[in-house]
């Protein structure tokens, strides 16, 4: 037999991470974190380019051919369809973003920065909570005193 990888642990850990992402993060979280936002935006741009660019080019060049053939006043300054890029830019800037989180569920390592950032935030919140408790304790009369178990008092 060839070298078929029968160890499913990689897939399983990916599934666990994907579930963690689904349970803990919303679209807003991905958009707030720069790395994941960049991935979502690039994926969206790639998607609209893949689906819309060619039909737009075909439409525009078809219009240019029709107007050029009869020397119409419309598009008289673009007989060579050189401004198709301008048109595509206008259209792409006005397409409503559709962000698809599937890419992070399929490849959780792409959201590793977001996960690490979330853990760091949790750790910082926990440290701040402990610090607040310490400060509250230090503000009491018993701060710095030892508890005497025999007399049940602070000394």
């Amino acid at each position, binding site marked *: 037999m060839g070298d078929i990888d029968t160890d499913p642990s990689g897939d399983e850990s990916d599934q666990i991470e994907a579930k963690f992402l689904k349970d803990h993060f919303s679209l807003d979280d991905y958009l707030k974190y720069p790395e994941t936002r960049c991935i979502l*935006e690039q994926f969206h741009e790639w998607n*609209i380019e893949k689906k819309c660019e060619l039909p737009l080019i075909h439409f525009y060049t078809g219009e240019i051919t029709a107007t050029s053939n*009869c020397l119409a006043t419309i598009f008289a300054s673009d007989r060579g369809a050189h401004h198709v890029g301008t048109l595509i830019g206008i*259209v792409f800037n006005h397409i409503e973003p559709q962000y698809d989180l599937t890419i992070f569920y399929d490849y959780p390592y792409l959201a590793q920065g977001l996960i690490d950032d979330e853990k760091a935030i949790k750790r910082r919140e926990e440290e701040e909570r402990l610090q607040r408790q310490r400060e509250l304790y230090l503000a009491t009369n018993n701060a710095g005193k030892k508890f005497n178990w025999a007399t049940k008092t602070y000394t």
Partner: protein
Amino acid sequence: MAQFPPYNHQVKNLSQSYADWFRSPIEDSGENWRENITHGEYIRYFYAKLKRIIQEKGFNINNEKQFKSEIATFIYQLSDESNG
């Protein structure tokens, strides 16, 4: 979303105002490409076709009013004036 960079868009200035140009008929060599339609009617046709292409691919347009305005300006800047 990142804005796409502007492309080179060097076109000549038209002496006719946009409003006059919008109402004026498209002139051609008489090949009956689109008989008796105005530049404004052509803009509406062009915009409707663009919108259909986008929607057929499963996308929606945001800020439709602004989009219409940019498409109209784009066509106006690349077109000639009518003489009559």
